[in-house]
């Protein structure tokens, strides 16, 4: 069969699963007074359509910021405006000021779902397909298999939120892999302007491009490239923020909305370090918010430093992708005010690694979806979660036969274990350990899912299951952070390291 027809089938499968999952319930369905993210998206359409641009981010009599006020960068707001125009055409009640609060109906649900599906179809899916077609040293079959796996990744499907930022970030990676640095930086600026969380990926982008400039020599070509890139970034930011540039106060207000430092170290049950430590020590009570902020900043910075330095010194595409993973993961684990959904920012670069380290990627993607379980249960998506996760596991297993690829080369740990053997000569058990850990962890996740879905927690500990889910996931993520850092630092494909080892 031809490549294009296989790709069409892959895309159709991805679309079908997305559409089916959207039949289920959505966040905050029928739960006044605040509803959920669905209402937030609808409310933004209402606000952006009815209010002048100057009032979008300000608390006014028409714009109560306590009720799902805009807290995303301008591009998201423009996007909401665009959707609002379409909504106005179909049914003006959907976005009427004030009166449309908590609007729920079957056609409206269909409309919201369709906007997400179309967004996916326009931005995210083409990026995935192009990326997989680009993959070097792989057969057509493998390319299509990786496309299918990436499109079937349950986390993104279940949290259908219009992932423009992820889509644009993917376009950024894609352009960089074609060596189109300017286009890549433009795409990434757009991504940041869709969602400030994209900053998790900014350091790898920055270090990679900087490293590239260094490589070309800072006095000649490199300097030109650096100036070009800087100009692109500044220009694209300026265009996005143009309507807000009239007053300084406007910009400051938007920034305050984007980075709400007063919200505290963490909210809800996030699978990061602070929330897990909270089980033992109540950090929020022990330290002042200012110290918390400093502490989290210090930890984040320290953990992402090694990968970034390595990337700046030896910029390579492979290293860049790994650095994206480990930086985003450090941000997720240690930074301030992290949301559960931010794990998707780590998952996307991991998806890109599926064909290189199938076992570890599949494992990570499973854990990342599992960490969203409390959220999904709240939204009534248990069935969809179980089904899509099983489907994802099946597809990964049949296309990459993950259980057979557990040698040290497949895990990219060859050089790491070689250097360990320098100290402990008898150390040879990596594949075995990883394989058994994988099985134990999958079983554990299965049991925990089953328990949180069926059992009612004891009265003294109402949050028992969400907390255990987030602690278990957090432990996994710590392990993955170490793993990915080990891979980045001992990456032997670069000349210098190889010489050192031999």
């Amino acid at each position, binding site marked *: *069969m*031809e490549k294009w*027809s*296989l790709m*069409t*089938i*892959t895309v*159709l*499968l991805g*679309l*079908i*699963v997305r*559409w*089916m*999952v959207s*039949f*289920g319930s959505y966040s905050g369905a029928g739960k006044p007074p605040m509803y959920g993210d669905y209402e937030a998206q609808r409310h933004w359409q209402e606000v952006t359509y009815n209010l002048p641009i100057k009032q979008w981010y300000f608390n006014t009599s028409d714009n109560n910021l306590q009720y799902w006020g805009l807290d995303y960068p301008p591009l998201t707001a423009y996007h909401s405006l665009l959707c609002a125009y379409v909504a106005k055409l179909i049914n003006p009640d959907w976005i009427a000021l004030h009166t449309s609060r908590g609007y729920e109906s*079957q*056609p409206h649900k*269909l409309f919201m*779902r*369709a906007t997400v599906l179309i967004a996916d179809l326009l931005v995210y899916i083409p990026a995935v397909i192009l990326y997989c077609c680009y993959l070097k040293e792989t057969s057509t*079959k493998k390319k*299509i*298999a990786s496309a*299918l796996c990436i499109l079937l990744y349950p986390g993104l499907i279940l949290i259908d939120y219009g992932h423009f930022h992820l889509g644009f970030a993917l376009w950024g990676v894609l352009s960089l892999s074609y060596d189109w640095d300017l286009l890549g930086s433009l795409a990434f600026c757009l991504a940041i302007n869709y969602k400030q969380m994209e900053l998790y990926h900014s350091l790898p982008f920055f270090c990679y491009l900087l490293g590239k400039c260094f490589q070309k020599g800072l006095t000649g070509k490199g300097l030109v490239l650096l100036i070009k890139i800087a100009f692109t970034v500044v220009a694209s930011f300026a265009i996005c923020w143009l309507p807000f540039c009239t007053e300084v106060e406007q910009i400051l207000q938007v920034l305050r909305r984007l980075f709400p430092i007063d919200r505290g170290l963490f909210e809800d049950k996030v699978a990061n370090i602070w929330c897990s430590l909270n089980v033992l020590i109540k950090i929020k009570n022990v330290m002042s918010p200012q110290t918390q902020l400093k502490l989290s900043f210090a930890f984040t910075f320290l953990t992402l430093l090694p990968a970034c330095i390595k990337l700046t010194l030896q910029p390579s595409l492979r290293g860049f992708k790994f650095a994206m993973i480990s930086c985003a993961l450090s941000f997720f684990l240690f930074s301030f005010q992290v949301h559960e959904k931010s794990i998707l920012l780590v998952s996307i670069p991991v998806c890109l690694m599926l064909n290189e380290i199938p076992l570890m990627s599949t494992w990570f993607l499973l854990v990342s979806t599992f960490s969203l379980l409390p959220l999904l249960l709240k939204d009534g998506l248990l*069935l*969809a979660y179980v*089904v*899509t996760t*099983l*489907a994802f596991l*099946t*597809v990964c*297993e*049949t*296309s*990459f*036969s993950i259980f057979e690829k557990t040698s040290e080369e497949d895990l990219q740990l060859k050089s790491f274990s070689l250097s360990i053997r320098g100290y402990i000569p008898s150390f040879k058990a990596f594949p075995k350990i990883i394989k058994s850990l994988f099985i134990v962890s999958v079983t554990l996740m299965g049991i925990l899912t089953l328990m949180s879905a069926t059992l009612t927690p004891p009265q003294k500990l109402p949050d028992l299951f969400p907390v255990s889910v987030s602690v278990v996931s957090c432990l996994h993520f710590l392990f993955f952070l170490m793993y990915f850092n080990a891979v980045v630092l001992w990456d032997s494909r670069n000349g210098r390291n190889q010489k050192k080892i031999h």
Partner: protein
Amino acid sequence: MAAAGGSGGCWFLALALGVSLLKCLLIPTYHSTDFEVHRNWLAITHNLPVSEWYYEATSEWTLDYPPFFAWFEYALSHVAKYFDQEMLVIQNLNYSSHATVFFQRLSVIFTDILFVYAARECCRCVNGKRPGKELLEKPMFVLAVLLLWNFGLLIVDHIHFQYNGFLFGLMLLSVARLFQKRHLEGALLFAVLLHFKHIYIYVAPAYCVYLLRSYCFTANKADGSLKWSSFSFLRITLLGLIVCLVSALSLGPFAVLGQLPQVISRLFPFKRGLCHAYWAPNFWALYNAVDKTLAVVGIKYKFLDPEKIPKASMTGGLVQEFQHTVLPSVTPLATLICTFISILPSVFCLWFKPQGPRGFLQCLILCALSSFMFGWHVHEKAILLAILPLSLLSVESPKHAGIYLILTTTGHFSLFPLLFTPPEITTKILLMLLFTVYSFSSLRALFRKEGPLLNWLETIYLIELVPLEIFCEIVFPLTPWKLKFPFIPLLLTSVYCALGITYAWLKLYVSVLTESVTVRQKAE
């Protein structure tokens, strides 16, 4: 589908698991009144003694399947009570709690295991003559996808709601057994199937003739004609015994109770009209369309008196008897005769020029298609009866592959009006695209050397389906005709699809008849 990579036998399991998971995702979708039909049957069989099953009429959806199906519902009801007791109350009409939906949908998904097994057996019957090829281009793999991921079965069973999966599983399994020369098993399975759902009686002639000709007669003469002396009385006794035993098991209790006439009257409701509420795309759809056109033209040019024309509009939604205006009205007997005549040549062919199980399969498909073309009150879903068995032949020869592509695409398209709620419109289009893209590209890859599978006319005809769909679902609801002529999309769909299905039927018939001639010449 691209997923099934290197490892040997597990690709089939992956395909089956994949489609089962997809079915699970379809659980919350729209379901038709057939859902209530089956809930009602669950309640009837659970609460009432056997003697009242075929008399109960609280709901309008009375039990009108043969006894085995009733027993099947009885068995299911004993699982259902652990999900939701309320669904087993006869008076709870249109009851559809979450647990009820979940249970009924899951019951379809789980009984489909039989279909999966049958598909596996069918894949083993296909000769994989082309070794060394990539897995994705092996006939076995293609057949597995065409059967397991069949669009029609997915939407009819898992969205619209019916239990066709395991019934077709029984049929395919019996076909596979005949291919494997396990004739008695095949006969037993088919007899059982008949007592699950009597619509399969349409293909019974093929079974009768094939078993009589190729099983009861143990040898042929040198020129391939019948050798009367080889008739085996033992074999025909065994066959007769199987059929009688199964029938006794199914209908026996009702015969003892003296309820046979009541059961029969429930099973064959000839009081319903010539066509279903929505016209199945068969000969009668064309006939009705011609009649309607003539009537309109006649009124316009004053050949007909508008006063004398009966007002019943066929696609109005209600099943009712319909008087044709210009052409003679059709009686059940006439449809029966037409069906009989159209089946006859294929059966003759099977008798006089037996070609082993493949000939039998062709005859079975022709029987199914002919009865679809001319039957009384045919449902559009009955096209699956021809599509699924034809999948087996399509992966073996390019000629059948061409016919298969026309038949499946039009047949599946004609199922579109079954789903009309806005979310399902997207679903059905996506699923249809998935299946159509796969069937076209895989069959073309399979027969790459043999040239194109369709000629230009057929290609244009199939492509025209796209504008037709756009017109029916998007353009038409925006036009002012929507209120005045609400039946136009249905009429267009069924007439247009009827053309394709008639064409495929004729083409298959011609190929079967001419094929036998060439073989005979060779034999001479």
